[in-house]
């Protein structure tokens, strides 16, 4: 009996030992990424298409920025200007309607095909005719599928002409042409891959302009060429030896889809990735303290705000709108939840935009807020709800605001929801208060001015769903002023008009703008030349090398 028991036990122990040895017996292997490859851990699950005429997502913008060229590009030295990319020079006609671009000589796509003005014209044509999300950036110059052939055309092999419908500020037009939707595609290559389409009322053309193929394909000329995108897994880019500018230093860049901040941090610490891109403040802190790692950050064109729906009679009182601006504890937010990932910024133009002002007049001031509420006849406060997307920083911000509002007698109920769910409600104007962010669509002050300070038709049927519309804020005068700023040819005067608009928004709007997003990255110290740009399509990896 004893022996039996012993045998039983020892056999079980032996089996257990064998299994654990099998499980964890892997020899220690210190990870290092290949010397010619940059590996980034990045949440890239928002990518839905690699076609520059269709893509409008933030991580796609980074890939497009690195793999495609434009006529003109944002000047990273002074982001209120553009600089030549494929275009060598350009002129604007005296009436302000015709822009003529001269291409640099001897340009080639990654495929080896020459880059001509015909490729530029085709790129504009397909973007406009496909009419996907970012097409409005070109359409807003009075361009449609019916007239694009006339408005965006090749004069000869190296001359491209772009005609707009009004004498817009040239800075506005050029800034828009630096958006990814204006990327130049290899027309010859794309035309080999077009699929036939039966025209319908919604889509008048007989082919898809290579859209199906370009969703995962590549036809550009950037510093890197796109080798592969596998949804939810990875994006692989390889050096383009035909690139017209300074050649990329590394042979390959791999973005691996990693959603979790802590997993990214572990992989960075272990050396399995070179860069971690979605770090939360606590992981960022730990990385900053690690002597093998370092961090970098750059302000992005995204602002976080809370907005008060003017359909709610309490929130529609002008004094209440102002009171809310005194009921946010900006200092506390900036030293806790937003530490390292946001900078307090209360006007709607992000730093780096033409005319952006950087005065932050509001501070937590409960007494002042109570005074304003009393003027509105709401001295005893009121109850109100806020739709909050779960996750950080929104949840933490909402909780802080809930507490400071309480000090002035305003009872805030937080309704948590998934991001798409709160957004659906917001877009239907069914919220009281919404907390969210807005990233500019292209690097020009008009992008944010249009959404925060214009609302052409405040009816429910209104077609222009700007943020002002979503909050039922009817502002005919500001709308006119925003439109006027577009037509101001003098860049200095145009900047002044935006300063004025920002001041008015600070003084009267239902928007409590809180901070501007800082994009952060943790990196291994052996990386050289890694820098985040002012926008998502200027996070260039071409200059990155390894020691």
């Amino acid at each position, binding site marked *: 009996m004893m022996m039996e028991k012993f045998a039983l036990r020892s056999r*079980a122990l032996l089996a257990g030992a064998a299994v654990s040895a099998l499980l964890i017996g892997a020899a220690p292997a210190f990870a290092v990424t290949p010397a010619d490859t940059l590996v980034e851990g990045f949440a890239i699950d928002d990518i839905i298409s690699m076609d520059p005429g269709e893509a409008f997502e933030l991580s796609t913008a980074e890939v497009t920025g690195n793999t495609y060229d434009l006529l003109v590009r944002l000047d990273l030295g002074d982001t209120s200007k553009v600089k030549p990319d494929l275009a060598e020079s350009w002129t604007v006609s005296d009436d302000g309607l015709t822009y003529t671009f001269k291409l640099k000589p001897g340009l080639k796509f990654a495929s080896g095909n020459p880059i001509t003005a015909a490729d530029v014209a085709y790129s504009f044509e397909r973007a406009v005719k496909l009419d996907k999300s970012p097409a409005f950036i070109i359409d807003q110059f009075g361009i449609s599928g019916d007239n694009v052939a006339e408005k965006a055309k090749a004069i000869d092999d190296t001359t491209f002409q772009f005609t707009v419908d009004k004498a817009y500020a040239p800075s506005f037009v050029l800034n828009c042409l630096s958006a990814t939707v204006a990327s130049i595609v290899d027309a010859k290559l794309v035309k080999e891959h077009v699929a036939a389409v039966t025209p319908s009322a919604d889509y008048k053309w007989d082919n898809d302009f290579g859209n199906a193929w370009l969703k995962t394909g590549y036809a550009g000329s950037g510093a890197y060429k796109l080798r592969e995108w596998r949804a939810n897994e990875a994006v692989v880019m390889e050096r383009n030896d035909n690139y017209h500018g300074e050649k990329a230093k590394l042979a390959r860049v791999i973005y691996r889809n990693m959603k979790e901040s802590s997993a990214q941090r*572990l992989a960075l610490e272990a050396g399995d990735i070179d860069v971690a891109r979605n770090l939360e403040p606590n992981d960022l802190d730990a990385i900053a303290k690690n002597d093998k790692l370092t961090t970098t950050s750059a302000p992005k064109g995204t602002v976080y705000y809370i907005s008060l729906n003017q359909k709610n009679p309490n929130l529609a009182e002008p004094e209440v709108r102002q009171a809310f601006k005194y009921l946010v504890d900006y200092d506390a937010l900036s030293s806790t939840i937003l530490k390292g990932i946001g900078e307090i910024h209360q006007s709607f133009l992000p730093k780096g935009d033409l005319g952006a002002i950087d005065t932050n007049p509001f501070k937590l001031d409960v007494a002042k807020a109570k005074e304003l509420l009393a003027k509105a006849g709401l001295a005893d406060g009121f109850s109100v709800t806020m739709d909050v997307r779960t996750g950080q920083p929104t949840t933490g911000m909402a909780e802080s605001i809930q507490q400071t509002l309480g000090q002035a007698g305003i009872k805030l109920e937080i309704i948590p929801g998934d991001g798409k769910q709160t957004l659906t409600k917001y877009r239907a104007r069914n919220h009281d208060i919404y907390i969210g962010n807005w990233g500019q669509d292209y690097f020009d002050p008009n992008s944010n001015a249009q959404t925060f300070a214009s609302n052409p038709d405040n009816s429910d049927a209104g077609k222009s769903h700007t943020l002002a519309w979503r909050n039922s804020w009817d502002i005919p005068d500001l709308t006119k002023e925003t439109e006027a700023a577009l037509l101001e040819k003098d860049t200095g005067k145009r900047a002044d008009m935006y300063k004025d608009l920002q001041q008015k928004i600070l003084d009267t709007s239902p928007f409590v703008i809180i901070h501007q997003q800082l994009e952060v990255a943790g990196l291994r110290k052996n990386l050289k030349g890694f820098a985040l740009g002012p926008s998502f399509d200027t996070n260039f990896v071409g200059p990155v090398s390894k020691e």
Partner: protein
Amino acid sequence: MSAVENESGRGSARAVAIASAIGRFLVIAVTTYLGLLAVTFFIGRVIPIDPVLAVLGDRAPANVVERTRREMGLDLPLIEQFYIYVKNALSGDFGTSVLTTNPVMTDIRRAFPATIELATLGTLIGSFIGVPLGVLAAVRRGSIIDQIVRIIGLIGYSVPIFWLGLLALVLFYAKLQWVAFPARLDVVYEYTFTPITGFYLLDSAMQGQWDVFWDAYRHIVLPASLLGYFSLAYISRMTRSFMLNELAQEYIVAARAKGLSERRIIWAHALRNAAVPMVTVIALSYANLLEGSVLTETVFSWPGIGLYITNSLQNADMNAVLGGTIAIGSVFIGINLLSDLLYRVLDPRTKAG
């Protein structure tokens, strides 16, 4: 002994019984499918997320939103949308995923092998350790071993898997560097290795690429052990209770009186009988893992079916959710059928019946 005689004598009757069992099963399966489809479809349509938003994002202009809504057929009545969906599904067309832009079935063929590989390994670990532990706990009931097994089980039940997963990552990956980082393969191999079946261990072994095999192993071992631990917790508890039940039976007393060795009584007699319900337990636990352990897949960046469906659900990508649900439903139904058949093979009484 009589079982053998009965089998030969009533062979045809048994075939009929099995055929009718399969027939019944098919009817149940078809109704289950339809129910599953309808429920998923309508839940997908009543969740307060605009599917167009998922396709286009927040920044698309109004005209594009309207056009896309028509293209997706979302302007049609619900019942018509459902009819079109079922009609297409019957001809094998499950639509296109919004998020990946691939046909849903292509996505699932990619994601499922990742999950199956993980779940199979997890279940193997869970059974090979869980069953002996359960037996040991039952035999030494009340002893210190029994207590330890109980605590192991309790932790497995109550500790959140993502927490344990992160902890394991910190220890075995970050500190000790025993296992590889969260993914299926190292970056170096990811683009030089072409999978055939999608089971990386199998594929690399078939191609004789032993370095890839080793790498895949170093990536899968931690998540698989973790899943293994959680199914172990369940399997060991169930084994213990089945064994206790068997050990209290009279035939055990009879066997002891006959002078059989304790080892033989436990392993050859009691466990043999306990094995019948154990099959169902293990099959269910396997099916659960096959649903894709969302949290494990998230923590370990494992591109499996759980991650795929959750991602799709959060983005109102309903074609992907429906396709995934059908795939998982099929596996669940399949495993149930299989365990039912196994049950019949293992249980001597059903042979006689």
